[in-house]
């Protein structure tokens, strides 16, 4: 393909990348958040049988650090809705929980049990991308209306469920992680040439590596990967990877190490002065709970939030929906929400809105088909900004967020710098509808990777 010479600043502007305190969610026609709306009287006769919802998330194991916020968000929304009499004022929510740590096979069985025995009306939750590609086809087979809170792998829609009817997903797609990080780094540090990588040696790390590189190389010409470190699962001593990266004399070190591994890595890196020797960008440093990262974490690094929601974004009450959500969540749980909390909470309100809209059209409790029709193409206000459900792949799209680490007096943990938030409209960094999937004309890791490779200009 012939390379076009486009100015980087122009291209980033074209993508809609914004930075600073003024950054705000994409402009969408003003709408009232569902949680703040007083629903109109429902049309027709509404049964008062409880609405049975299944929420599967990690309640045990390391991923419980993500699972608990998900359940908290879900429960908060359910409590609020029930306090108003339930959906359509009649049907209160009863939640059946399941521990996602049971394993993929057990989770599939549990979804079947929930649908066939417990007769659930909606299946929600799921954190792991190891599980959504297994559960999605089963949801389709069972005709179980499903809204995944996470499990963000591109593979779900690229391969596992290419033409979904019953399955939806509210989180941003995984490829956005690496691309968002790349855009933030390119905009902030366009002078970097030598890049060292430290990624966990499994598919998430490879996904982040691939998507960062393809996007960054388009935006910053002449870059070179000077070091690759692939810590094995279970690594506790990152010294070899840190020193290897540092000895390659990089301008920028990129990492997608997460959770307790990231904490161990950054504390070890502090001892080696790694953050003083090169710029640092992470896809997911702040991607667990807000309180997870201590104040000894280096300031001024790109501290990704999994290209998703962050509780202080946008700062200064520019998005009242978020301020309300954070206040309610904090009042209920005495802690701040993460992107799982946001996703699980708004999943219920999105469903509630779809039911109410369908009720207006059809009266009574709407058929599942009618609810799905409302979900497809829905624009919906969430704490993370406006969410759009793409009709073709049932994927939720909201602006990706990242930013720079900073200590502030108001919080006993480190947060994203309120003055330097970066936001990117997700649709501008994700493959468009009907873009060829892997195995259909290309064998790149994801459709988005191929789309970036094929269509993004090489900036000058």
């Amino acid at each position, binding site marked *: 393909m012939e390379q076009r010479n486009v100015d980087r600043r122009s291209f980033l502007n074209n993508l809609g990348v914004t930075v600073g305190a003024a950054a705000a969610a994409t402009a969408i026609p003003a709408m009232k958040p569902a949680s703040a709306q007083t629903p109109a009287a429902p049309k027709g006769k509404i049964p008062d049988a409880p609405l049975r919802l299944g929420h599967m998330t990690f309640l045990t194991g390391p991923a419980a650090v993500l699972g608990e916020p998900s359940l908290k968000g879900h429960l908060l929304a359910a409590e609020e809705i029930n306090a108003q009499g339930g959906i359509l004022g009649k049907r209160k929510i009863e939640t059946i929980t399941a521990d996602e740590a049971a394993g993929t096979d057990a989770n599939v069985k549990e979804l079947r049990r929930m649908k066939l025995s417990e007769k659930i009306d909606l299946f929600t939750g799921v954190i792991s991308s*190891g599980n959504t590609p297994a559960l999605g086809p089963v949801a389709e087979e069972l005709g179980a209306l499903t809204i995944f809170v996470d499990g963000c792998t591109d593979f779900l829609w690229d391969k596992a469920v290419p033409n979904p009817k019953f399955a939806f997903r509210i989180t941003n797609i995984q490829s956005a992680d690496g691309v968002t990080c790349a855009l933030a780094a390119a905009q902030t540090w366009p002078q970097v040439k030598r890049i060292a990588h430290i990624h966990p040696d499994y598919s998430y790390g490879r996904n982040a590596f691939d998507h960062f590189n393809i996007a960054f190389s388009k935006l910053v010409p002449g870059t070179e990967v000077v070091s690759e470190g692939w810590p094995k699962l279970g690594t506790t001593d990152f010294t070899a990877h840190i020193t290897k990266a540092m000895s390659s004399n990089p301008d920028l070190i990129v990492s997608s190490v997460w959770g307790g591994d990231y904490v161990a890595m950054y504390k070890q890196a502090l001892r080696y002065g790694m953050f003083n020797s090169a710029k640092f960008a992470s896809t997911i440093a702040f991607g667990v709970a807000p309180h997870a990262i201590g104040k000894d974490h280096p300031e001024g690094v790109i501290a990704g939030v999994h290209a998703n929601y962050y509780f202080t974004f946008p700062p200064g009450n520019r998005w009242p929906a978020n301020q309300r959500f954070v206040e309610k969540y904090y009042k209920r749980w005495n802690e701040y929400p993460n992107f799982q909390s946001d996703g699980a909470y708004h999943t219920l309100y999105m469903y509630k809105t779809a039911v109410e809209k369908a009720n207006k059209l059809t009266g009574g409790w709407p058929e599942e088909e009618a609810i799905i029709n409302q979900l497809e193409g829905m624009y919906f206000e969430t704490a993370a900004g406006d969410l759009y459900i793409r009709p073709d792949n049932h994927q939720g799209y909201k602006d990706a967020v990242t930013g720079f680490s900073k200590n502030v007096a108001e919080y006993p943990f480190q947060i994203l710098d309120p003055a330097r938030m970066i936001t990117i409209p997700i649709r501008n960094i994700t493959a468009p509808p009907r873009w060829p999937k892997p195995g259909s004309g290309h064998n790149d890791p994801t459709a988005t990777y191929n789309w970036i490779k094929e269509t993004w200009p090489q900036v000058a």
Partner: protein
Amino acid sequence: MSLHAASPRARLGGLVVGLTCAVAIAPPSARADHAVSYFPSFYPHEIRIETLDPEGAAREFINKNNPLHVYVGTAPRFSGQIPEHLKSAESLKSLITVSVNPQSSRLQNREARCHAIEQAAAALRAPPDVVMHPYPITPYHADYLGHADRLPPGKATRQPTAAPVPTFRAGADTSLLSPQAPVQATDWDVSLDETSVSALLTDAGIGFNDWPAPRWTKEGWFQAYQLLRPALSQASDREQADELFERLAHNEFRDRTEQLNLERELLAALLVSCERAVVGYRLRREFYTDDFSDGIENISVDSQSGLNSAVFVRTVKLKDFLWNGSLRIGIDPRPTAAWNPIAGFTDAAGRLVWSIVGDNAFLPVPYNSRWVQNRAEIRTTDESGIRRSVRVPDDALMPQSMTGKFAPVGPGHGAMAKVLYRMSASNFSDGSVMEPADLLYPFALAFRWSAGGQNAATYDPEIAAATRLMRERLRGVKLVRVEETARTIADQTFTYRSPIIEVYLDNLTFDEQEDALIAPPWSSVPWHVLALMEVAVERGIAAFSRSEAERRHLPWLDLLRDPAQLKALRALIKEFAQTGYRPAALELLVGPEAAKARWQLLDQFVEANDHLLVTNGPYRLKAWSPDTFVFEVVREFTYPVGLGTFNGFADPARALIRAMERAGDLVLVSADAEFAVKQQRDHRLVRAPLQPDTLRGTLQPIRPESHYVIIGQDGRVAAVGGLVRQPDNRFAVSLPTTLQPGVYTLFAAIFLDGNTINPAIGRIELRNGGTIGKAGRTGDARDEERKP
């Protein structure tokens, strides 16, 4: 896999392969994101144990650079106020007894002795950590509810009378005495003593090392027997107590009501002669830092060993890390017991070390007297839940006494119980792969070192005591097959192999878990290290136990800290690597070449690590000095127990009974739940009505276990049972129709998630005019309604 070949070797042939196989397969896909569903081992990636005196611990808690996280065993000695960031946990440390001098001329009759004990108790001054409690079973024993009537409320502190206070023995623990209490070196009346629960259990042959412990280890009746039985002077009293004890130990009772009556009779038999009595207990108060950044959380406190427990190290988490981080533990005093898993690790430091590096089949539940599955899973069989004898397969194996050699049981043998285990195998730290010989060899060692008495070349009384129950009841063991399971983590799949083993026992019980605890086919130490220790003892290099070491004037066997022993052990390893030595008991299970390979691995291990503490536990010894021991986490995915497995034991909920009332044939109990709610890096305690949807801090529903005991005026237990949750969220006792007319007291408690520590017990008096089951809900309700 069928195991019906002719010889044990042939039978095991298909199994004499590694039982652990973790294969990572990484397909080039993007099917997984960052969330990892399983992480092997537990939170800290390093545990550092340091010996610190209480003053040193107080200083290290406020060390700015590297603060102490937890101090195990006792309280630090603070020079001023206790720092605000510190929290403490309480557990039962010791029982305080008054023993009557059998030579005291003043105390030759029972009444005088009983009175002297009362007077002695009244002469005690109780510091804040001592609770006056004139009964051996305390709120820190799981069986406390069954004895709740024995300690009437408000009667714990006895008032002195005008009668003269007995003289106390000088040299005993007199620190609890008021200054006015008379003390004499000779011609004393009573001795005041304090016995730690850990010492009591050690004396009872329970080591908390590689051997399984009896299920009743933490129960009050068992500890009371160990503590009070030695003071009984009359043969008839001893015989009665022994008979009751044996009936309990052998499950010779029809039901729970009879069991409880036996336990109460045992206590009465131990106390009737007033020769020794428990007058109180001391609580252990252990401190840890709760600092926002540098503190620890997810704390599980054992009712009797406090923070020195296997489950504590498997739940504790540094707040500044989602997982990983270096946990700094202080302990006092310095370790004195030898470190060998057969009859060592017997002091506080040793127990802590073993709980870190060892990995027993079952672990004690912190807040009751049950055990939780760790490396063993009990499988249901056709015989499960049925109390009838079973045939022992001809080809099941039994170790022979003296030699330990395994031989087929042969035809015509039966057993009262069969337990089917699924064991979670994993590699040992020297790289050796777990094999059937590793699972079976502890049986051989137990039989070999427990027969023949002191004159035998292979005998150790502490091994005999620790394994008595297992040897008495084991009737056969059979390897059935090896199962494979796959675990997918991110885009990698790990395959684990688990041996399925049948164990046959002569044990009568209603409780399948109790059967499973008697002889789990498991060892946290490989057969070659066990065999090495045996040879070392046989060749006079050392002795397994402290008592044998003293008797034979030998060093106490230590795998680490005695350079002379280590040198001798290394020489043995070199020798065995040449000869392919394997003990006679294993000749049919292990070939010479496989044995050589084991010794070579061990040789490499000791060369690299300079110690022989080879285990398959969640942590490994990394470095040590006389006062510091550092352990590193096992994050290899071959280790099958993962982060969060035991989190349900941290910060347990507790029930508080609000009210009890009778409604006809029902007694209704209203209760609140007190539970910790996790918030950011902290917890707050919340009290709320106990409802089905009340969630703990882990967002798991609270599972109540409710129990009642009905006791008649004659002190006999008339009925025991469980309560049923009502639609209005109260708990109901449905009074048994078999209850005879009379006056009774009903005691009820609700153990949230099984938490029996310091329970709130409700009581109500019942007058049954014979109308139960006849009068309906309004029936014979002339009871005194009481709140607890």
